[in-house]
């Protein structure tokens, strides 16, 4: 199968990863056999991207077969992507998810998410961080985007 990322992009991303990835980061992809037009491309894209750094590991699950794992991460769509911090065997779930293929404009979001989770740093203002720590109830944010 032809690569989704050309050599120039691969070189660029490899450089960015080398300079900016800090701690190991895990990508967990949930895919489906049916009704998922973008699952195969998403898987290939994530395989290519995770292959550009030793700090990134990729796990792929079938959403239906691994419903228990999907539930644990609150994933109900395919393709569904979870970004986690890895510390040895320990998995740190920061609550960062994507639904749909991260291509086009969202490719940069994918790279950005990997860097932030790897750095264990949200990049937010201190005031925002402090206020978020005072939350007492669960907050579920869904950010709708389009690839172009």
């Amino acid at each position, binding site marked *: 199968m032809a690569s989704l990322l050309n050599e120039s992009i691969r070189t660029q991303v490899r450089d960015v990863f080398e300079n900016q990835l800090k701690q190991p980061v895990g990508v967990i992809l949930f895919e489906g056999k049916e009704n998922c037009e973008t699952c195969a491309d998403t898987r290939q894209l994530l395989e290519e991207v995770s292959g550009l750094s030793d700090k990134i590991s990729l796990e792929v699950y079938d959403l239906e077969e691994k419903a228990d794992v999907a539930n644990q991460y609150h994933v109900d769509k395919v393709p569904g992507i979870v970004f986690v911090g890895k510390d040895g065997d320990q998995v740190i779930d920061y609550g960062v998810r*994507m639904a749909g293929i991260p291509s086009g404009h969202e490719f940069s979001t994918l790279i950005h998410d990997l860097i932030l989770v790897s750095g264990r740093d949200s990049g937010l203002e201190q005031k925002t961080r402090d206020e978020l720590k005072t939350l007492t109830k669960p*907050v579920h944010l869904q950010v709708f985007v389009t690839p172009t």
Partner: protein
Amino acid sequence: MMAMESPLVEAEMVEAMEFPDLADRFNVSGVPQTTINQGAGTVVGATPEDYLLNEIKRAMG
């Protein structure tokens, strides 16, 4: 990235064209659009941190 700062916050980026039913349900007309707790709050467009935070607080009641 707010999700990283609180174990109570979960954030999902949704590709609207792939999930049109969900986008319809929350009346997504422009992107980015942020939906808070299944429609308890909505922010259309890119948003400064403090504005989104205020909307979250308002949506929580």
